[in-house]
C-alpha cells in the first residue's frame, strides 16, 4: 500500500515537472522577450525580426539621432492611419505606439498574432521618415 502511494506521488511529481517544462517551452505563446531596437540615421536596427506566434515582445527603442522618431508597430491599417493622420506625441498608452525623442530610450510591449498571421511592420510616421526607409518587418514564425 505504501509503495503504491509513493509510486503515485512520483508520477504526480513527474507530471508536474513535465508541465513546468511545457510552460517553459520556447515556443510558448505566453513567453515575453525583449528586443532592443535602435533608431540610427533615421533607420531601424534591426529592420527585420522573427517572433513566435502569439509572442509578447517588449521593444526597447533607443533613438541615437538628433531628431525625434516614432516606433509604431501594427497591421497595415494602423500604419495607414498614422501616415495620413495628424501627428502627435505617442505616450505609450496605446501598446506598440511610442514617440522616441532625440537621444531617448522608450519601450513598449506588443503581442503578436497566432501562427499563420501576416508579417507585422513597424516604422516611423513623422513627415518623410517612412518614405526615407524608416521601417522594419516582424515575421511571425
Amino acid at each position, binding site marked *: 500500500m505504501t509503495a503504491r502511494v509513493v509510486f503515485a506521488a512520483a508520477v504526480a511529481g*513527474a507530471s508536474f515537472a513535465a508541465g513546468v*517544462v511545457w510552460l517553459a*517551452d520556447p515556443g510558448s505563446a505566453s513567453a515575453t522577450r525583449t528586443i532592443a531596437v535602435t533608431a540610427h540615421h533615421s533607420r531601424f536596427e534591426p529592420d527585420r525580426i522573427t517572433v513566435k506566434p502569439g509572442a509578447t515582445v517588449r521593444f526597447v527603442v533607443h533613438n541615437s539621432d*538628433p*531628431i525625434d522618431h*516614432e516606433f509604431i508597430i501594427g497591421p497595415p491599417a494602423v500604419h495607414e492611419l498614422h501616415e495620413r493622420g495628424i*501627428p502627435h506625441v505617442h505616450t505609450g498608452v496605446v501598446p506598440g505606439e511610442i514617440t522616441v525623442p532625440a537621444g531617448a530610450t522608450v519601450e513598449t510591449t506588443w503581442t503578436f498574432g497566432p501562427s499563420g498571421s501576416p508579417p507585422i511592420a513597424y516604422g516611423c510616421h513623422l513627415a518623410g521618415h517612412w518614405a526615407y526607409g524608416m521601417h522594419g518587418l516582424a515575421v511571425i514564425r
Partner: protein
Amino acid sequence: MHRPFRRFVVASAVAGLCALAAGAPAFACAGLVTPGGNVKLVRAATLAAWADGNEHYVTSFTFQGGGAEFGSIVPLPGLPSKVERGGDWTLQRLEREVAPPAPRASCGPNCEAAAASPAAAEEVYNTRIDALDITILRGGGAAVGQWARDHGFQLTPDAPEILDFYAARSPIFMAARFNADAAKERNQPEGEGTPIHLTIPMDNPWVPLRILGLGKAADDIINADVFLLTPAQPNLLPAPADGVAEARSEPASKSLLDDLRSDKGMEWVPQQMWLTYLRIGEQTGRLRYDLAVDRSGTGTPSPVMAGLEAPPAPATTTTTAAPTTTTAAAAAKPVPKPKPKPTPTTAASAPTTTVPAVDPTLPVIVEPPATAPPATAVALPPARPASHDGSGAPAAVLIAAAGGGALLFGLAAWALPVRLRRRAARP
C-alpha cells in the same frame, strides 16, 4: 514628433542652381519650403576659389516669402578665418561669364522640390550680415543636429546621416538663418540676395555637393552650378562625368578677373587663374559625394574629402583661427589673425589629401568615423539572456531531468518493497 510650429528649415543651400530649361543656364534655386509653405529659400550659388593658402567660398542666399524665419546649414572644410558680406557682383559676373545672355526668371520645377529642410555644439562665432544671422559651429553631427533643433531648425530624416557624413571629415558648419525682423528693419525687399564670403585656410578648395540633396527624394534631380577658380587647371574628384559635367575649363579671362577683383572683398583675385565651370545634374540617391580638388593639377584629389572613402579612424580635424568679420555686428569680437599654412599636395603613391591647416594653439577635435550599416543589412535581434525564446532550453532540460529523476525514484520506491515481500515469502 512633428514640429509644425517650427519655421526654420535646414537647407542644403550651397551651390544649387535650377535649370530653367534644357540648354538654358542654371540658376541657383534650392527650393525650400517651410511647413507653413509661405517662405522659401530660392537661391544659393557658390564660388570656390583658392589663392594664397585660402579657399574663398562665396555663396548667396536669397529669401522670399512671408515674415517667418528661415535657415540653412552649410558644412565647411575648416574654420573660417573671416566671415564677411560678399560683393554683390561676383556671382552674377560668373554666371554672365558662362552664360552671357541668361535671362533672370522664375525657377523651374526643381525649385519646388522641398529641401526643407549629446554634446553641445560650440558656437565659435556669431554675426549678422544683412538679415542673415550667421553662426559658425563646431561639433559632431549629433551635436550640430541638436543645436539646430534647439534653434528651431526642422531637420529632415536624412539630416542625421548627412551631418555625420560631413562631421566625420570636418566638424565645422555654418548655420545661416534669415531674420525676418532684421529684414523689416532694413527694408530688405523680397528676392534680394545676401552673398556671404568665407575665407577658409585650406590646402585645396573643396565644395560640398551631397548636402544639396538634403531633404529631397532619392530620385529627385539636383541641378547645381559650381565655379572654381584655381591657380592652374585642377584635377577633380570625382572626375567630370555625366553627373558632374565640365561645361567650361579654360584660363579665366582678364576681363572676368578684373571685374571680380573690383567687387567688394575680392581684391585677392590674382592676375591669372583657371576657370572651371561644373554643371551638376545628378539624382539625389546617387549624389553621395563632394567635390575634391587638387588645385595644382599635378596631384590627386583626396577621395576622403570627396566622400568616396571613409576618413581614417579617428578622423582628426583642426582649426586655424577664429573668424574675423567686417560687419559692424561683430566688431566687438576679438579676432586673431588667420594662420594659413598651405601644404604641398603632392604624393606619388598616396592620394593627396586636403587637410585643414593646424594651429597648435587650438584644441584638436577628434571625431569618430561615421559607421553606417549597409541599408540592405538585415539583422536579427540579439539574443537576450533572460529571453524564453531560444535561450530557455537549458532550464527546460534541468526541469525535465528533475522530473525524470523523481519518476525513477518513485519506480524504485515501488519496486523495492515488492522485491522484499517476495524475498520474505520464499521458504
